[in-house]
């Protein structure tokens, strides 16, 4: 095994992964399907070539077996049970429920009769991963088509059986009915003895959103009972007979190299206390232990003495100077564009009535998924099986295959519904560690990271610097816009305001900390800078911030959310002493958000309290209103942390506040009054909502603080010092 056990995460991996070549592995052929699933009706969804290029990275493997670009399939068994297979995974965004609704709607079976098999690399088709708010616009639509095709097959079976015409038959509640002749047959009877497999037809009619009966409803979490009873087994809850617990030695600092390691004492301890059921593993830089309990493994690990060598590294003091200075004219070929230019910014700036040049910054923050990374690994000869919590089970399968120099078809990764991710679980560190230890121990091994490990050895949302220069006319027309983002990313970097002269550049920087995806990615940073700057410009020309935005905004969907939120908020109402109102909003991952915040700044203590937050959100036709509200409320609560107080402190390759007693996350007492407005556009295809709702909050709060006390805060987090304005 190579000493380097982790695969470096490029910034915003999903954007890179959109271009990464996919390894299609789909070994079942037509007969295998029935052997594996039993008789019945199977509908297989095959991505169109255009969609494949976007979703899976392109490439086609032709062969005797079924097409390789399958993204989902559905089976109706002889007992009428519906099983849907998708490589998407559940991390709390409730897609197990919303996808079940999609199938229920088109197949006309109750949600309770539908089972989703998700994120199992052996049983489900290849999927790039669950991120980028892609499940609703892609998989939800695809499963509706699959279910509709299955319904057509079932009606056809009934028609053949009764010698009737299909147009006289209707499917409802798990049955096909012939109302004219007063006869019906349930799906179980129709599928009995059948071995029908069909790939999804290119054309098929779907039920329009305006006529949805199950989709569009607030269906509760399908397996909710398993969670309130403690029955559900998360990755960290998985067990196997004879399982051991593993711990891995961590370097003293990032990028440190192992100078020497003394495992003698640990080995003696293992020999003395847990003879035969514990072991110390050394492989290059990788040093780990396994023992019968996690406590024993920790004790053995603590007995290992290691010396590490590391170079001086950038600390958070001076970080932003470093990011600006070290910036290359970065290429982020897969983002929203690393360099966009239109008109002549320099000329327009020279002729504008007002100019404004401002710098905004965002700190590194951690995802802090409440369930830390965890994996259970088991070897059967040269076959490896790993249960782990990851948003990319197929990606982790690839990482395991690479780490152990083995073909991917000898690796199976299963993803039990996991204790959240927020973009932070794209990688397979614990999977690789557990697998390495299990190979040495010749028994199944579970590795669960401690909170401290999760803070230090996962990855962070990138820090960044945004330089904005703008020019505006006295009448409030923005004429010039220059925007530079250093390191944090290009998601949401382009402006949706109508500005004739623009220069927008993303600069990639070698990050001192390991960084990667995070819910809404750089869109939070870019919207914070843009929407704060819009507020500053409005004040520069003495215009109302809402009026100023609408004057420069043509996008109807975005205007609609701003106007709806403003109305609900009562924008323009008079305010009391210390009270402040602000807004922020934008467009990301195909959704539209406007967030209005009310804050109170205590005049004596200078402490900020976020009193009320109103978000108006529009993401096309709504699939599950309550699930959607939950996502929007959750985005605002999680977003409070990054907006107000979350920041990773680090020095010389070490995290200084990597525990929950040191790193503050939002709690009950931080909760403002939350109001959510849903704009249901049944005429527009549904898109995702896990990320976009987050982006308006930070600028809304910053703008409200300015409104309350005249202090302009341009750094996220805004008030890390006990919520006090410095």
């Amino acid at each position, binding site marked *: 095994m190579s000493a380097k056990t982790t695969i470096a995460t490029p910034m915003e991996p999903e954007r890179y992964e959109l271009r990464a070549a996919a390894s299609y592995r789909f070994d079942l052929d037509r007969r295998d399907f029935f052997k594996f699933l039993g008789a019945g009706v199977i509908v297989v969804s095959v991505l169109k070539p255009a969609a494949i290029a976007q979703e899976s990275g392109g490439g086609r493997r032709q062969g005797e077996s079924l097409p390789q670009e399958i993204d989902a399939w559905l089976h109706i068994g002889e007992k009428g049970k519906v099983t849907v297979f998708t490589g998407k995974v559940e*991390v*709390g*965004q*409730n897609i197990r429920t919303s996808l079940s609704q999609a199938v229920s709607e088109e197949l006309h079976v109750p949600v309770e009769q539908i089972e989703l098999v998700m994120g199992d690399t052996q049983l489900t088709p290849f999927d790039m991963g669950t991120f980028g708010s892609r499940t609703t616009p892609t998989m939800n639509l695809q499963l509706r088509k699959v279910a509709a095709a299955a319904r057509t097959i079932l009606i056809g079976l009934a028609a053949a059986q009764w010698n009737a015409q299909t147009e006289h038959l209707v499917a409802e509640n798990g049955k096909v009915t012939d109302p004219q002749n007063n006869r019906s047959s349930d799906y179980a009877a129709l599928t009995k003895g059948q071995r029908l497999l069909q790939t999804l037809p290119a054309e098929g009619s779907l039920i329009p959103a305006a006529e949805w009966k199950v989709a569009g409803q*607030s269906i*509760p*979490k399908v397996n*909710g*009972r398993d*969670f*309130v*009873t*403690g*029955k*559900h*087994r*998360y990755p*960290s*809850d998985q*067990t196997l007979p004879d399982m051991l*617990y593993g711990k891995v030695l961590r370097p003293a600092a990032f990028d440190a190299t192992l100078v020497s390691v003394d495992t003698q004492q640990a080995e003696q301890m293992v020999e003395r206390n847990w003879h035969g059921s514990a072991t110390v593993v050394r492989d290059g830089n990788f040093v780990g232990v396994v023992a019968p*309990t*996690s*406590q024993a493994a920790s004790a053995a690990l603590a007995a290992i003495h290691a010396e590490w060598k590391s170079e001086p590294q950038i600390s958070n003091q001076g970080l932003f100077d470093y990011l600006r200075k070290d910036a290359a004219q970065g290429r982020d070929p897969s983002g929203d564009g690393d360099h966009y230019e239109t008109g002549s910014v320099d000329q327009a700036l020279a002729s504008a009535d007002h100019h404004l040049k401002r710098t905004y910054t965002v700190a590194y923050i951690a995802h*802090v*998924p*409440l*369930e*830390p990374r965890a994996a259970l690994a088991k070897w059967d000869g040269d076959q490896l099986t790993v249960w782990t919590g990851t948003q990319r089970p197929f990606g982790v399968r690839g990482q395991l295959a690479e780490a152990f120099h083995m073909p991917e078809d000898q690796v199976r990764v299963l993803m039990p*519904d*996991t*204790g*959240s991710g*927020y973009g932070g679980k794209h990688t397979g560190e614990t999977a690789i560690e557990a697998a390495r230890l299990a190979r040495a121990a010749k028994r199944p091994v579970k590795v*669960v990271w*401690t*909170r401290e490990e999760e803070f230090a050895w996962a990855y962070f949302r990138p820090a960044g610097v945004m330089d904005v220069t703008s020019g505006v006319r006295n009448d409030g027309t923005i004429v010039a816009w220059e925007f530079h983002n250093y390191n944090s990313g290009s998601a949401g970097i382009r402006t949706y305001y109508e500005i004739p002269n623009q220069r927008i550049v993303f600069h990639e920087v070698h990050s001192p900390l390991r960084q990667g995806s995070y819910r809404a990615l750089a869109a939070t940073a870019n919207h914070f800078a843009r929407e704060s700057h819009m507020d500053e410009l409005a004040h520069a020309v003495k215009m109302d911030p809402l009026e100023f935005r609408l004057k420069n905004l043509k996008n109807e969907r975005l205007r609609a959310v701003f106007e709806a939120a403003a109305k609900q908020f009562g924008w323009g109402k008079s305010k009391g002493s210390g009270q402040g109102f602000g807004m922020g909003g934008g467009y990301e991952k195909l959704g539209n958000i406007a967030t209005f915040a009310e804050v109170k700044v205590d005049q004596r203590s200078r402490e900020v309290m976020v009193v009320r937050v109103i978000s108006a959100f529009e993401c096309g036709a709504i699939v599950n209103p*309550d*699930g959607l509200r*939950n*996502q929007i*409320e*959750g*985005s*605002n*609560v*999680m977003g409070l942390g990054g907006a107000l107080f979350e920041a990773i402190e680090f020095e010389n390759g070490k995290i200084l506040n990597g*525990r*929950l*007693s040191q790193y503050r*996350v*939002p*709690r*009950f*007492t931080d*909760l403002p009054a*939350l109001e959510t407005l849903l704009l249901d556009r049944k005429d527009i295809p549904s898109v995702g909502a896990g990320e976009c709702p987050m982006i308006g909050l930070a600028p809304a709060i910053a703008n409200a603080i300015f409104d309350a006390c005249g202090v302009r805060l341009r750094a996220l987090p805004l008030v890390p010092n006990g919520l006090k304005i410095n």
Partner: protein
Amino acid sequence: MATIHLSVNGHTHTVDTDPQTSLLTTLREYLDLTGSKYGCGEGQCGACTVLIDGKAQRSCITRVGSLAGRPITTIEGLALGDHLHPVQQAFLDEGAMQCAYCTSGMIMSAVALLQKTPTPSKRAIIDFMDGNICRCGTYSRIIRAIQKAAKMTQSPVAKGSDQ
């Protein structure tokens, strides 16, 4: 090492372990009761909350050696057969979860709160629950669920039933 008799969810379990072992580790690794979760290991997040003598305690910082014979209730012991505890039912009714990893700790804390204060004010709920973290941000729903559970347990009709 010591032999410790633990009373968990009405059953007595005998475990041979170091008395310094945390209750959370004991529940999860020795008794295979995995409903109580690890989140921080320092009593900061509440995911490991159980009831000891009817009071909410952080099992990750409670040493098992001090618990011999004292009644311990975990999330697995809350429902009576198929009949959910009112707090469990209220969490389902209000959709008070996303990934739900915090849910068992939230429910156990809420049960302890309602035992002590059957009709808590919203402020009292917020203050009592502040030690429990939900990273998905479902706090407002959890508050509603606790208010609903309080009503369920107060209502004479619902009392004693699964609702």
